[in-house]
């Protein structure tokens, strides 16, 4: 952890900024805190959040410290198109999921987690696969944000990494613990205002302070031909393409997005997701442009570590007051994601583990649920701090979770549209996809000859699946089939024979294709028909202490009566019941 030598803050200043930030967010959270919180409000804030807060929360949650660092790194590495190939595809993760989100809310208007809906649709094994991947993913994200906080604080102050991790973890837990998701979304608004405001000011200030636009001419020689090309193939193949493959996987696998999907007022899903797409994209690409400026300047980050790039650019070109604003921007970015991760983890433990599997939907005690949620937050924070302190290499775990999410995409989405998908097809297809993914991604088997060709063929099918699913959300099945077939056919001549050399990309694509082919093959011949109306009856509020979970008896959500059973006399979901 090499420090920035040019403009460090003193320990008192950093502690003052942290107290200002976390003290402020804590005070904000106390404005909505109630002595007796509602269990459903703790998870989804009554399913009735307005556009302003939900769009801000979605934006803040999706922006984490790593995304800003990675976007700048992409700009520094791949040149002028680098930030686009990072930020654009990350933004599209939000955009492409909203048509599916509308369908998910339509069939499960009062659910809390996607896994809970899978339980209602299929049963326990499907639910636990999704919930398990959500838990691991959120814990990794939480740990990454704590690490980012520790690095930043150790870089800009005399405090060390461990002290920084503890400070961030304690601050986030402080304002999230009592009111859960309600505190998370409200503080997200304040945090996103600070983050967006900071980017709107800091990027132009650094631009002019560093001698641009004149530096575009004096520094042009620092760029290679590829770095100076807006249509760089290097940038697309190494940065953009793997991200396109991950667009749907991360959106489906991330409970923080699903939680906001179930929290926003149903008629506001589209404007919320579209605004968050633009907000996330512009902010992350904007910060990424600092990497492009650094490239033109011939800037060398300390120790060659590109994670030092943004802090050092800020330290070199910003006056102390704006450097403090920069510090708060990064702390805001990592805190807004960390509090969302805590809320996601607690809601999964409350709804999926305790509510559906331990106590059962009918017997779940709202007070116990709240206790489970709060204990989960404390335990998750402690675990993330412990893992962060060990500074484990999380890359392999991230890759595995990403692949699991990729394997889940088709079975999950198909389960909301196709009444023939069975629990057996869901479970088998996901396990088979993982079984194929692992040797491809980690090179456990030689890729020479027929094996390599087979992987390439599966990858080409995966390309068709990914693009077909994207189109399906907006334009329907016919357009999706046409897109899938045409894109696979167009990719085949280039991909077959060579795509297996890109292990990350081909591993991700085979996860998509294998799960899709098997899920489709096992479901197409199925004689079962699922009645989607059952999902709404099998999911719903656990706590009738308030009508809408926010203390607003008679609120809009009161129009939907609490459902206490299936209506079919069956407490447990069946794979197919109609």
């Amino acid at each position, binding site marked *: 952890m090499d420090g920035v030598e040019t403009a460090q803050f003193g320990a008192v200043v950093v502690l003052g900024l942290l107290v200002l930030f976390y003290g402020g967010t804590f005070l904000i959270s106390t404005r*909505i805190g109630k002595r007796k919180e509602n269990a459903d409000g703790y998870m989804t*804030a*009554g399913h009735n*959040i*307005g*556009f*302003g*807060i939900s*769009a*801000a929360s979605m*934006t803040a949650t999706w922006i984490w410290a790593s995304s800003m660092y990675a976007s700048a790194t992409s700009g520094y590495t791949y040149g*002028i198109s680098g930030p686009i190939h990072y930020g654009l595809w990350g933004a599209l993760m939000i955009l492409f999921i909203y048509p599916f989100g509308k369908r998910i809310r339509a069939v499960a208007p009062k659910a809390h987690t996607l896994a809970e809906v899978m339980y209602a649709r299929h049963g326990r094994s499907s639910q636990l696969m999704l919930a398990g991947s959500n838990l691991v993913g959120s814990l990794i994200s939480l740990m990454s944000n704590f690490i980012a906080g520790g690095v930043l604080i150790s870089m800009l102050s005399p405090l060390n990494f461990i002290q920084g991790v503890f400070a961030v973890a304690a601050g986030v837990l402080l304002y999230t613990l009592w009111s859960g998701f*309600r505190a998370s*979304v*409200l503080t997200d*608004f304040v945090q*996103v*205002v600070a983050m*967006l*405001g900071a*980017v*709107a*000011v800091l*990027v*132009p200030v650094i*631009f002019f302070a560093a001698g*641009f*636009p*004149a530096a*575009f*001419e004096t520094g042009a020689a620092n760029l290679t031909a590829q770095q100076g090309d*807006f249509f760089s193939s290097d940038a697309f193949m190494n940065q953009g393409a793997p991200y396109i493959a991950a667009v749907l996987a991360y959106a489906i696998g991330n409970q923080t997005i699903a939680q906001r999907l179930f929290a926003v007022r149903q008629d506001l899903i589209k404007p919320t997701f579209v*605004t968050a797409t*633009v*907000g996330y994209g*512009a*902010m992350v*690409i*904007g910060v990424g*442009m600092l990497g*492009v*400026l650094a490239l033109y300047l011939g800037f060398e980050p300390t120790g060659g570590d590109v994670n030092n790039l943004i802090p050092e650019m800020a330290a070199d070109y910003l006056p102390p007051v704006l450097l403090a604003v920069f510090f708060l921007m990064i702390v805001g970015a990592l805190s807004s994601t960390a509090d969302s991760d805590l809320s996601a983890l607690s809601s999964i433990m409350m709804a999926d583990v305790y509510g559906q599997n331990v106590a059962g939907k009918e017997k779940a005690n709202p007070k116990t649920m709240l206790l489970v949620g709060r204990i989960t937050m404390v335990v998750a924070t402690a675990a993330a701090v412990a893992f962060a302190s060990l500074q484990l290499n999380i890359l392999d775990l991230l890759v595995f979770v990403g692949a699991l999410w990729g394997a889940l995409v088709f079975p999950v989405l198909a389960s909301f549209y196709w009444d023939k998908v069975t629990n057996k097809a869901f479970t088998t297809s996901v396990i088979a996809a993982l079984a194929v993914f692992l040797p491809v991604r980690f090179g456990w088997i030689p890729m020479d000859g027929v094996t390599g060709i087979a992987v390439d063929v599966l990858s080409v099918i995966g390309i068709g699946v990914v693009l077909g699913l994207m189109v399906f959300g907006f334009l329907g099945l016919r357009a999706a089939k046409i897109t899938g077939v045409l894109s696979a056919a167009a990719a085949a001549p280039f991909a077959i024979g060579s795509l297996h050399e890109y292990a990350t990309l081909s591993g991700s694509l085979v996860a998509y294709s294998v799960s899709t082919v098997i899920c489709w093959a096992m479901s197409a011949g199925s004689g079962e028909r699922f009645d989607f109306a059952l999902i709404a009856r099998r999911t719903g509020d656990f706590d009738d202490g308030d009508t809408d979970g*926010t*203390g*607003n008896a008679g*609120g809009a959500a009161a129009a939907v009566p609490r459902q206490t059973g299936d209506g079919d006399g069956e407490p447990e979901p069946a794979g197919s019941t109609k």
Partner: protein
Amino acid sequence: MSTIALSTYILIWPVIVAVVLFVVGRAFYCEWAEARRDGRSLI
């Protein structure tokens, strides 16, 4: 790309960010005012 085009390309993003900030902030204020008028919690 020319210097002007590059400058525009770099500086357009903070402008878009500012627009989003305005849209989100205005929506939040309207929701806050409405909740206050109705005497209910914002969240």
